[in-house]
């Protein structure tokens, strides 16, 4: 493809999906800053002519009579909001042609990692590593976070966490999302008495069991480079007893002041995992903050509206630097 002199040269690439409304928040902020950007949605690629030259590192796109040219010289940053894992949910109704197209475009997006000098939020390779819960918990503990007693096992027993944990939290090691016929199944964190653990039923898959934090306050922390935003999660002014996502229509989010040492630990964690962005789940229990998990491609837009946190502005700032 020929690059015309009129070709636009975006400074920011937004790799998203058309229905990723969170990306709209970033678009609006980049427009206010007059930063040249290009949003690429995987489901819209077929409407464009696309050519990637891997040796000269040049991406050319033509669509709707406009052309765009992306090079290392002009590209400053990339917001990567596409999947790193392509999961098998089962019961896939798509045709072979649709699946083929989806997989190939997903690979195309990942191949844009060749623009290695750009500031990736986040780098897919770092995201891949950081998505793994055992890696997260290990790094978090190393940098000084308090982490609940945890085992990843297919053979849990009442004393897996020692003798002190009567209540345990049970989670998937990875997202539990399956499709079965016309239904969908989703696994939230559930709580159980450790006495009821029956090892023989667990053998077919590993799971995460953790000492349950009762009487906790959930705190969602969003880190963007040096900026840290925190929100408490409550229902009717009270902490949520179990997995707050099960009550998401009834929970409130309020801006929360993290102690400076905890905020700094969150920054260090994100940096230690090679990330620039992270959605961190903490739980405050008896005045102590526990690390639960970090989501390298976590959601945040609902906190802009619900808790008044200017995460969208911070992200646009980080992308346009």
């Amino acid at each position: 493809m020929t690059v015309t002199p009129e070709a636009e040269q975006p400074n920011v690439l937004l790799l998203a999906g058309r229905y990723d409304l969170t990306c709209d928040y970033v678009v609006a902020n980049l427009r206010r800053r007059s930063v040249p950007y290009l949003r690429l949605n995987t489901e819209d690629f077929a409407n464009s002519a696309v050519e990637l030259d891997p040796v000269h590192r040049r991406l050319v796109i033509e669509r709707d009579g406009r052309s765009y040219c992306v090079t290392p010289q002009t590209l400053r940053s990339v917001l990567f909001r596409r999947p790193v894992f392509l999961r098998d949910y089962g019961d896939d109704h798509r045709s072979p042609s649709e699946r083929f197209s989806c997989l190939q475009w997903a690979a195309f997006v990942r191949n844009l990692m060749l623009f290695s000098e750009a500031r990736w939020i986040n780098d897919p390779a770092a995201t891949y590593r950081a998505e793994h819960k055992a890696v997260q918990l290990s790094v978090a503990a190393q940098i000084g976070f308090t982490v609940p007693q945890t085992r990843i096992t297919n053979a849990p027993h009442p004393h897996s966490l020692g003798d002190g944990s009567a209540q345990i939290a049970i989670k998937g090691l990875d997202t539990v999302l399956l499709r079965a016929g016309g239904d969908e199944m989703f696994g939230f964190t559930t709580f159980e008495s450790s006495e009821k653990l029956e090892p023989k039923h667990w053998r077919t898959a590993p799971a995460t069991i953790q000492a349950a934090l009762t009487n906790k306050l959930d705190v969602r922390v969003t880190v963007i480079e040096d900026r840290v935003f925190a929100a408490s999660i409550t229902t009717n002014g009270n902490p949520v007893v179990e997995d707050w996502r099960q009550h998401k229509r009834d929970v409130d989010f309020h801006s929360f002041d993290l102690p400076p040492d905890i905020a700094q630990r969150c920054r260090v964690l994100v940096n230690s995992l090679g990330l620039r962005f992270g959605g961190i789940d903490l739980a405050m229990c008896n005045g102590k903050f526990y690390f639960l998990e970090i989501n390298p491609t976590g959601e945040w837009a609902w906190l802009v509206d619900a808790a008044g946190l200017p995460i969208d502005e911070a992200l646009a700032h980080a992308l346009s630097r």
Partner: protein
Amino acid sequence: MEQQHPLLQRAQRYPRGDVDLTPPGCRYDEAVGAWRVIQTGALWVETPNREGPRTKKNDIETGEDQKGQ
């Protein structure tokens, strides 16, 4: 009969349904890379009282980070 894994026993099951993810009354503006309100032409995200992502994941359970394909 073999007993299901406890994680599957505890998973919530709900009808999948075909969810229309289009913000009400909007069309996607590919040149801008954002949704616009058809009636006013304003960007959806800059419209007061818009139907949000009001909750984490906007009620679509695909894992925290939209890892679905």
